[in-house]
Structures are given as C-alpha cells and as structure tokens.
C-alpha cells in the first residue's frame, strides 16, 4: 500500500474534522484490503474505533442502540439482542469467519465497499472506480444485481444492512457539526443513484450508532451461499413482523445481494398486512418483490433462490 499517516482523534467532532483528508478506520477489514490492492490510497487514516460511546450496546426501552464500533462478534453473541432481534443476530453470525467477526465492526459492515470482482481487480478501472466501463454488465456477472438504478450492478453485500432494514433501524451520523438520522434506505440510496457511490455517506460522515425500535416484532434472516460457511450470500433475506398466531402485521421483507441497496418492495409489505401467512401468501409476496427483477446473463439463478428465501424467512417468523 502507499504510505499514510495515522491519527487517533479524541472525539467525534475531532474525527470528522480530520477525515476531510482521509478515511475512517475502525476494524479495518475493508479499508485495509482496498489500500493493499491500491484501490484507495488515503493520506490519512482516522482511527475512530475507540471514540467514546461507539462501542456500547444499550438495551431495554423502546429504542435499543448499538454503537458503530461494536464488533460483529459482539452482536452475534449478545444474549439480549439474540432474544429480541434474532434476525440481526442470525445475520451477524453469517458474516465472514469468526476471526473477521472478532475485528469487523457494525459501522464497517454497513459502510463496506463493493465486492464486485471487477471493482476489486487491481489492473482494471471500472466505472465504480472512475473508469468508463462496467465490465460486469456484459461479463462474468453471476454474483451481481437483479435490480439496479444506474450503470453499477454491484450488489450490497452487508448482511447487517438487510437485517436492520427489516427492523426499520436508523443510523445516527455525525454530519458537519450535528447528528443526522438516516433510515437504511436513505443510507444506501446514493449507491442506487450514483455509479461511484457505495452508500450515501460523504467522506466526513461518521456513523455513531444504530437505533432499533423495539416494536415487539419477530425477526429472521436467512442466506444461501455456495459454501456452508465463510462465504458471501448469493441472496440473503431478512423479515420482521408482529406475529399473532400466523397473522402478520407491520411486516417488512428485505433482500440482500440482489441490488446496490437493501431491496424491498412496499407493495409486498402491504400485501402481508393483517393476513395469515401460508405458502400462497408468501409466494405472492415473493412475486411482488421480484416483479422487476432484470437478470443478467449469469445471475438468473438468484430469482428462484430469492423466492425460496422469502418464503422460508417469512415461515421462520411464524414458526
């Protein structure tokens, strides 16, 4: 990698003011990988890992908060989170390997950059890296998106984003001098709109914590990968709903690894409202979610996987 400076700020404002010249560093799983591959070469790394308040999990009450620097492993093994937001815990348990989960943070998982193998290829400069071409669209696109808004078809691969979207979590971001709150859709909207964007965060936007409303909803997460563990999801699915017997209310179904955003279709959420879940209903929800799927040459198989996952994840909610 290219040489860089390293600084540990005292507080969030201090971090934000330094970051205009560099990148935030927390677990480092993603940014160090990009630096080693010369995809990015920041002049300064701003170590935010130890910022006050960003490593806490605050439970109880109507809104639970998880600091941006809480490790994925800490989420995976937190008994209260496991009980109240099982979908989040299941998503965390599928991230990388135990070694990665021990180091990777919630904020880093949400803000991670594209895993597209063209984007990561050291001798290519794809559109996401400022080049002219998306090589994936007419190339080897088995891992790419079924839905896209712009030229980049690299999908969002954060497991946690998918689970948190279903739980309608929000992200508190220090932007400029103040804290702003983004929904998960807002956190990724820019990746849908702009080819070079991985998410909606600007270079000096610092994630502080996420907030999850404890609305008495069940949640579930499932993914299918090529390998049993330590593999990216080909498709992931999270769902959350209030459940009365088999009757769902306030349901949210979200897909991952199929779009540059955590993909959901409001009509499907509405369809489920107040209804008893059965296979036919789940299949109709899946059809609504996948209605606009636009498979490429090699990723059509994601459609049947997504259908199965939507059905299974919804069934897991009522099980």
């Amino acid at each position, binding site marked *: 990698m290219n040489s860089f400076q390293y600084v540990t700020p005292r507080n969030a404002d201090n971090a934000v003011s330094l970051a205009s010249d560099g990148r935030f560093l927390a677990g480092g799983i993603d940014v160090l990988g990009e630096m080693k591959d010369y995809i990015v070469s920041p002049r300064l790394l701003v170590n935010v890992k130890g910022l006050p308040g960003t490593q806490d999990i605050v439970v109880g009450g109507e809104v639970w908060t998880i600091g941006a620097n809480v490790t994925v492993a800490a989420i995976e093994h937190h008994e209260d989170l496991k009980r109240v937001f099982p979908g989040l815990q299941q998503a965390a348990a599928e991230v990388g390997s135990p070694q990665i989960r021990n180091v990777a943070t919630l904020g880093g998982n949400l803000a991670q950059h594209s895993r597209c193998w063209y984007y990561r290829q050291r001798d290519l400069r794809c559109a996401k890296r400022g080049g002219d071409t998306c090589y994936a669209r007419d*190339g080897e696109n088995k891992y790419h998106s079924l839905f896209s808004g712009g030229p980049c078809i690299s999908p969002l691969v954060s497991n946690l984003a998918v689970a948190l979207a279903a739980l309608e979590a929000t992200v508190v971001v220090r932007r400029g001098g103040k804290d702003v709150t983004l929904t998960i859709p807002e956190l990724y909207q820019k990746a849908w709109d702009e080819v070079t964007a991985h998410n909606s965060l600007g270079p000096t936007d610092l994630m502080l914590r996420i907030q999850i409303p404890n609305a008495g909803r069940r949640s579930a997460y499932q993914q299918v990968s090529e390998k049993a563990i330590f593999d990216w999801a*080909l498709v992931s699915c999270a769902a959350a709903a209030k459940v009365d017997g088999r009757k769902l209310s306030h349901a949210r179904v979200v897909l991952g690894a199929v779009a540059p955003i955590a993909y959901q279709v409001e009509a499907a959420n509405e369809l489920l409202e107040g209804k008893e879940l059965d296979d036919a209903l789940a299949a109709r929800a899946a059809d609504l979610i996948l209605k606009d799927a636009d498979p490429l040459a*090699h990723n059509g198989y994601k459609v*049947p996987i997504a259908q199965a996952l939507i059905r299974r994840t919804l069934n897991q909610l009522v099980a």
Partner: protein
Amino acid sequence: MLSWPTNPTVIGKYTPRVEGPSKVTGAAKYSSDVQPTGWLYGMIFRAPWPAAKVTRINLDRARKVRGIKAVVAVRDGERTIRFYGEELAAVAGTSKQACLDALRVIEVEATPLPFAVNEELAKRADAPRVWPDTPNLSEPNVREKGDVDKAFADAAVVVEGFFTTQIQLHQPLETHGNTISVTNDGITCWASTQGVFSVREGLASHLNVSQEKVRVITDNMGGGFGSKFGPGVEGGLAAQLSKIAGAPVKLMLTRFEESLAVGNRPSSFQNIKLGATADGKLVAFEMNAYGTAGIGAGTATAGGGGGAGFPAPYIYPVPNTRVKQAHVAVNAGEGRAFRAPGHPVASFGMESIMDELAVKLNMDPVELRLKNDPSEVRRREYTIGAERFGWKQKYKPPGSSPGTIKTGVGCAGATWGGGGRGTQAEVQINPDGSVEVRCGTQDIGTGTRTLVAIVAAEVFGLSPERITARVGDTQFPPSGGSGGSTTAASVCPAIYDTCTRALAELQKRAAMDDVHGSNWKGACKKLGVNPLVVHGEWQEGLSSSGAAGVQFAEVEVDTETGFVKVKKVLCVQDCGLIVNKLTCESQVNGGIIMGLGYALYEQRVMDSATGVVLNPNFETYKLPSFADIPEIEVVLLDLPERGVIGVGEPATIPTAGAIANAVANALGVRVPSLPISPARVLAALGKIKPTGAAA
C-alpha cells in the same frame, strides 16, 4: 531378495507424524520461514495484459527506490506476452513495501495485442492466435479400435452426454517460492519444492554453475500437488537477484500470483457416446473432446505432464472405441501436472455416462460397474464399499427422493500407477545408540519423514521416535521428485535395504547375534568412538504399482436453492502394504477433500473481455472449509504381498464423479459440468436459463 517382515511391530500401525509437535507449536521451519542473515524480500513484476508486444522495460526508477538492492529484467529486448501475469522483471529490497513501491514505478513500453482466454472463443478459426504459427485448436489426437459405427448400430442401448470440467488451481497453502543465497562459495536454496534434486539441476543450469555448488533444502513443505518440481521462473529470478545484491533473497509468490502463472488442471469439454448390450455389457464408445492447458502444457514431470489429454474410456475396456482429443491454446497460465493428471477429468466424464447408461438400462450403477470393470481389486472394493455404505438401502431410482431437499447416492472408480524407483539412503548409528537416517527425498506434507522413521524402527526393533529421520537436502543420498505417488514406494524400500545392511554390520562389529530392541544400546556401545555409517538403495520386490480405489458419495440437494451438501464419502482404497495407517488415511482424506472442492466449488474464472483472472484469492476461488467437509470413511485394503504403493493421487480421482452421480441420483437430472454450483443445479432443474462460462 529382501522381503517385508511378516509380523511387523511398527509398520502398518497408527504412528503420529514425527514432526507433528514441531508443526503444531510453530517450531517447524518451512522454506517461507527461513530467514538467513541479511535476507531481502523479492517480488515479481508481471504483465498486466493477456497479450502484448513489449518493446522496452525501464527499471531505472525502480532501482532508485529506497531499500531496493537489486533489479532484474526477465529478458532484454523485445518480447511477446502471452498471458496475464507473465513475468517481466523482479526486484529485491529490504522490505516488502520497498519492493511494492519499486514494482509501481517500473515503466514498460508495450502494445496490447488481441487475445482469447476462454476455450470456446479461442478455438474459432478467426480467433487471435496465442502462437502465431499454429492455430489455437490442435488437430485431434485420434485413437480408434474395432468397428465403432457397427457396434453402435448393433448396441441395444446408446447414451450420449456433454460434460465439462473447469480449470482447477493447485492453491498450495505455502505459495511457490524460494529463499536463495548466491555467493562465490556456492548457492544455498531453501525451496518449497517436491524435488530438491530437480531444483538443484534447474538452478545450476540457470546460473551456469556446477551442480556441486548448489545445495537445496526443503525441511518442511506446504503442498505442491504437482506444480512444484523445478525452481520456476520465480526461483531463477530470486537467484539472479541474490547474486546482484550479494544477499539472500526470499521470493515467495503472493496468493494473487498463485492464480496466474504456476500451473493448473486443464479444462475439458467432453462429448461422449456409449453403447451397451441389453444386459449392460459395454460395446461401443466414442469421444470428441477438447480442453485447454493455457498457453501450453507445463514441462512433463513425475506424475505426468500438464497437458489437456486424458485417458478414455478410462478404467473400462470397450472393444470398439473412437477417441478424438484436441487441445486449445488460450492466453492464460500454463497447465501443470496436478494430483493424478488427467484422471479426475476422465473419471468425471466416464463415470457420469456410466450412470446415464445404468438409468437407461434400469440397472443398479454398482451392478453395471461390477459387470464391466476388469479390475478384480476394484470389484472387491465395490462389494466391500456397497456393504459398508448401505448402498442397497440408500440407492433409489433417480429423482424419487421425496420433498424439497432430495437425497442421492453415487459411486465411481479410479486407477493409478505409481511405483517405486531409484532412491538411496544412509544410516548413521552412533555409539550412544542414537540413529540418524538420511535420504534426499522431501516430505511434502504427506508424512514421508515418518515413513523413514517407521521403516528404520521396524528393522532395528526400536520405537520410531528414537530414529532421527533427515530428509529434504541435496547433501543426502539422492531420491526422486515427490510426484506420481512414487515417494513411499521409492523411499521405504531404500530405507529398508539400508537399515537391513546396517543391522548386519552392527551384528558383525558388536559380535552379537541379536542387536534388536533391548540389546541395541549395548551393541552400539561396542562401536567405540566412530559411528557406523551404511549406505543402501531401493531394491526390487518391496514395492509395486497399480492402485485401485472406489468411492461412494451421499448428498442432499436443496431443489429450491440449488445448494448441495455432501453428507458422506466412503472410500475403499488399495495401496499395497500400508506403512503407516494414520498418514495413509490422512492422504485419502486430503484427496477426497480436494475432490470435493473440484466437484462443488473450485474454478479459475477468466474475463473474456479483459483477459484477467477474476478470482485470484480465496474469497472468490472457493475451497472447502470445515463445514463443507462430510463424514469421510476410509477403508484401506491392506495387501502386504504387493509391497508399498503410493496413495497420494488415486484418492482424489473418483470423488467428483461419485458426487456428480449422487447429485444426478437425487435430482433425476444431471448437472453435467463442474463445479456443481447452485446456479447449475437450478439450471439443470429447469428453474432458470442455463448460464455461460462461469459456474
């Protein structure tokens, strides 16, 4: 003539590796761990184009990078680049970062040329040529016997299929490379190699020095699988850098580089037609096949070359056969010998069509094999294996398993040659009773060092831990490369001969009839001051060739997601006299796991448009992890009368075929291509349109 003891006390038991404790504590030094005083990092500058005409390389700026001590171009003057990652230059410096910085300021003047990296495009007549004077697609190699057309016309049943296998990379956990010190006094090379003597020969010839000046050491080694016999381009460059810098240079490839230029298992595209009588006797076979070994096959080595050819109709004799096999050159790294070269490719195609035939005949697949397999050993193994596996209970008509997650079973067979050959050894018995056995073989991770200790311990009536086995050094008596499953059959007889001679000599010197076990120390004491050193060598009659094996696989396939879970693999394997059951079973386990990777996960992915490798890492070049590995049951036929036979290769051959047949049995439709990915399972089930080149 020597013969193995009929009632051995050490041979054939479960003996832990003698170097085990040093490996688990980290004390064991691999070639990549060696750090001679003043060593420098070495790194290679590689072509970023799949094809180009290079007119000039300017290394001046690289030379000036702080910490850089040597810079060298692979070749001066104009040259043609034929694959992405071809070596252009190398640098050595005091830190890895210095080398990385230097690589980034090397200037190359080059004109990119048209290229073709994927087989189906490269074989078109109008495709850019990899080699200017030859079409990419070769004339087929034709082998024909009998009257094939008549035999098909007369056959009661004919089945046809098109099967494809991917490029598999060796991916040893220890990457390719060497630590080399070139001085006026001579050259020392710590090599990650399967052949210390072949590395010595390669280095001596590369540097134009006499072989006695070159010493090659391989103390511990992290896997090669056929791809590590010579010093390689990387070894030659490390030696040149060391010579220029006047310091040792450690040049180990990165994981990225492992995917580019150090070999692979060639791909195959196999059109197969098979005819049989109504009662299942094979009568006619026809194959039209091609595959690629990249820009060409690697240098032929022990265990076979790395070409795209493979045996057909593999283990089954068919009276009327017509086989046409061609190879197609592409702009990609060369093929090299890879654990049982050609055989897993052959087994997958042939065993797949055999099961298609069984289905059409409505015959049990094991029965079809018993009817056609000429090997008495393999027929016995099928019978033993079917019993242990519960084949009769588990085998159901294809696709008849109920529910969403379907189960299936399959089987496949394998053959391998192996055999022993010239190896020498020496034993030094010290007056204090300690024993050193020295042999210039190398332990590539398979347990060779432990075999040396076991055989010596057997002869002397000692326990293996009392033997110091020294291997992996060209200063020891010569032994061949560890390839072709020849090592155990070469080394064990040599150690046995050497130790038997030493035992006789010790009896004589000590004037004792029995110097074994409890008499050992007393006898050695009578040697006086000087140790006893005795030489010996490989002898006929203690080893043989020809290993037969069969495997059974049981799978679960999720028909909604395409996910395949292998539940169990059972292997029945013959490898003659088993010297150490523990390392033998370990070898078989490793072979099966590698076969599992070939069946389900592994594939080098090239990009047709840009010519680069898209998955040069373990993130997207997928290897089995623990959770993917099934229950493995290993049944070893112990046939001591056959002598020692290697087992490294045969165990990896039939795994993919057995798994593919199990998947087909579960689904009722076949996935005809490796790796069997969720995408391909769903395509076979008709749930999506078929995909192209990528899995």
